[in-house]
């Protein structure tokens, strides 16, 4: 905010017109900063918090950090994967409950675990095109406060009952009720087309790429160690606002060791022929939480005296045919990243940070294995050989989902804000802006990836 409080686009003010239509140049979309609430293991600190409560809290923390009270933001987009039907306007309701101007428009978006990153990309594109000057992207999920639906049988009976006009008609409808209709229909993470849970799907992929238990445990250990060190260094002081007595992610085990992780029993892939390797330690737990990211045009950020951490360079979505077993459920990023990098004339060597979402340790390691595999490179990516390998010291340097937890739609915002801060701190590398790659896999065989660059 400027000292006199006069800057910015107030209610019903109009941005000054630039060139009209197609002639308007594409401009940069910058990440100003972010805010999330600590992530809580489901059934923990946020058991009684709804998606709307958590998203509102994350928004209010962002507003407080950047002085956005009563500001009319260009657009807010967020979403949740596990969503009650009453939350049809979740994001707009959260905006109305926040300290933002009530004249801030909002929309909901849902793309499974890629929801958060997709809101960033969609809003960044609107900023780049000059449609809006500022935006807040976000996501929230509660596995604790998940919707529970009535059974299909009961649902049909209740709807028929509503349509029945006379008492005999109503009695007749009710007579169809059977005890089994009363069993609730709880949500599950199973894939509708295969009936397999996400963990079982990943277990197939993990086995296919021969990812060892030790490698998975080491990735999980690094995640906890890195996240813990980041907290100790104060890295999250301006990325996170406590909520309901929680000031750190409750899944974080700062004192975990490789030995402790090695003692955990496998939970996925037990029915496979090969030895099961996926445990509760190298898989993400069900988690509650919310995250937000403030995006802006450079002019808007300057006018509001706000920091510019990084730019949203480009993004790419991909999907795989996991239904027929052509690729693993969570392997879409293995295809999205090569396409994205080719479009931008970049290789894996051109990045300083890799943020590969740890749905499961096996997901990250299978993706990296695919990129390092000659045959996969030739036959699936159409390259002359392997796509490439990454410098592991650049991977998830401040921890990722295995330690922080993974409230599905909130993970994208967590990663984008953290990476933007890391890029700004890094500044330039060999004369070019520091660069980071984000990769997030999602249910339905999808994946969304993005490139951020320091300013």
């Amino acid at each position, binding site marked *: 905010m400027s*000292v006199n409080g006069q800057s910015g686009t107030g209610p019903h003010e109009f941005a000054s017109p630039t060139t009209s239509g197609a002639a308007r140049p594409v401009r940069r979309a910058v990440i100003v900063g972010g805010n999330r609430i600590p992530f809580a293991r489901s059934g923990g600190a946020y058991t009684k918090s709804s998606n709307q409560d958590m998203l509102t809290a994350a928004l209010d923390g962002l507003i*407080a950090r950047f002085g956005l009270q009563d500001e009319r933001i260009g657009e807010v987009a967020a979403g949740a994967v596990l969503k009650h039907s009453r939350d049809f306007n979740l994001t707009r309701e959260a905006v109305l409950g926040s300290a933002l101007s009530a004249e801030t428009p909002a929309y909901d978006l849902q793309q499974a675990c890629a929801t958060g990153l997709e809101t960033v990309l969609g809003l960044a594109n609107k900023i780049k095109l000059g449609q809006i000057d500022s935006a807040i992207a976000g996501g929230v999920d509660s596995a604790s406060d998940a919707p529970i639906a009535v059974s299909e049988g009961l649902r049909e009976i209740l709807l028929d009952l509503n349509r029945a006009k006379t008492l005999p008609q109503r009695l007749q409808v009710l007579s169809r009720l059977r005890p089994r209709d009363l069993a609730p229909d709880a949500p599950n993470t199973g894939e509708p087309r295969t009936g397999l849970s996400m963990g079982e799907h990943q277990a197939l992929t993990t086995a296919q790429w021969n990812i060892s238990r030790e490698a998975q445990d080491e990735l999980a250990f690094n995640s906890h160690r890195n996240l813990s060190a980041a907290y100790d260094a*104060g890295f999250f002081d301006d990325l*996170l*606002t406590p909520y309901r007595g929680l*000031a750190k992610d409750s899944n974080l085990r700062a004192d975990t060791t490789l030995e402790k992780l090695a003692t955990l029993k496998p939970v996925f892939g037990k029915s496979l022929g090969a030895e099961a390797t996926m445990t509760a330690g190298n898989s993400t737990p069900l988690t509650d939480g919310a995250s937000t990211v403030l995006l802006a045009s450079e002019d808007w950020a300057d006018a509001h005296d706000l920091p510019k951490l990084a730019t949203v360079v480009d993004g790419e979505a991909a999907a795989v045919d996991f239904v027929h077993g052509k690729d693993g459920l969570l392997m879409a990023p293995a295809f999205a990243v090569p396409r994205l990098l080719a479009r931008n004339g970049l290789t894996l060597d051109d990045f300083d940070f890799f943020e590969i979402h740890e749905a499961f340790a096996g997901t990250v390691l299978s993706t990296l294995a695919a990129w390092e595999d000659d045959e996969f490179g030739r036959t699936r990516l159409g390259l002359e050989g392997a796509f490439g390998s990454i410098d592991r010291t650049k991977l998830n340097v401040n921890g990722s989902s295995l330690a922080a937890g993974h409230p599905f739609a909130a993970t994208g915002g967590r990663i984008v804000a953290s990476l933007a801060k890391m890029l700004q701190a890094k500044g330039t590398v060999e004369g070019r802006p520091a660069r980071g790659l984000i990769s997030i896999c999602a249910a339905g065989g999808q994946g969304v990836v993005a490139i951020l660059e320091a300013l």
Partner: protein
Amino acid sequence: MTDKYTTLVNQGVGKNIAKRLGLPQPAVLRRFKPGQPLVTGPVLVQGNTAGADELAARLLSWDLDVRRHAVPREKLGAIILALDELTRPEDLEKPVLSAAASLRDLGPSARVITISRPAAETASPAQSAARQGVDGFLRSLAKELRAGATANGIVLAEGVQSTSPSALAALRFFLSGRSAFVDGQFLTVATEQGHLPPDFEKPLAGKVAVVTGAARGIGAAIARTLHRDGAILVLVDIPAAGDHLAAVANEVRGTALQLDISRADAGQRIIDHAVQRHGRLDIVIHNAGITRDKLLANMDHGRWTSVVNINIAAQLRINEALLASEHFRNSPRIVSVASTSGIAGNRGQTNYAASKGGVMGMVRASAPLLAANGGTINAVAPGFIETDMTARIPFAVREVGRRLNSLQQGGQPSDVAEAISFLASDAAGGINGDVLRICGQNLVGA
């Protein structure tokens, strides 16, 4: 945090019973609200000094109802006693006794304010005796006043006019409801510096102020009061208090800075945030503090070092960064929260009292450093204030703590905030290195 006893004895049956039994009858104090008149009735200016005449003229220009002679049985809002030309102790009698005749005409929450000179070594023994006499006189009178009335004094350094900006600002502060819980205290106007605001309702307009420990209690009250007075706020608290901090920031339209002030780079982080986000830094309020009470016999390293580190060492480090910064040179203001524990001592608080005594020592020694850039540094020393912290004191101890002052009640967080806002204002530029107690004239201590 409500004082149920005070509510009880101010209405109906409770009022009657308390009166008959001779129980304490704390008054409901007049506290400042925007738009409120400065005083509740006519202001009687006593004393035949040049300073009194000039002051009376200035009060008239504020549209106050000014009297130079008492009108019998007329309810008064305030008595100003000009004692700035005393040469020997005998000089005190005439103005004091003429004021005495009007004491019974003081209305509820009225004010008695003395204007005097310091009993410095440079004065003759007789003059110094007369001047020091004002101190004992005023503190005793404060204990005699009833119904929320208070008595406070303004001490004008040699050569400082009674109409200098800070003398007038101090006078307005003492007259107003902003000083509700300040009683029996003196403010020294050391220089003619400072200037009165264009709008007395917005004395901090355009100023960028940092408040530490702003997530709750007194810190949150300071944030609200500074916001009301026109300041743009940067609110600081430890990351773990971030949710409360965000709520206060959103209420006062400020920015929240989650920061542990005991970090080595805290001062620089505060300066960078204020300058980048708000373009400047004018005011820093050191409010963050902790208690870790234990009798000294049971004291350990952890309790001692954490209290000293956060309550005083962190302030010293931050001040060093502020003083070294080119962004803190335009009439900067620092106000630190000390405590009456640091003056009078408190059982079980050796660590806390040492840290708060330290704050006052720091303020005195830092005053010349701030003055070099037209700045000031002062402290406030709260007594018993009604907060979450004091609400946890056992009932009996709490009742004693509350009543043992001339106003027979605890203060509100806003009372501390009002004094801080005053000391942080441009108008208070002539007050430097001072400590103002906000304790309702607590019976312990100086």
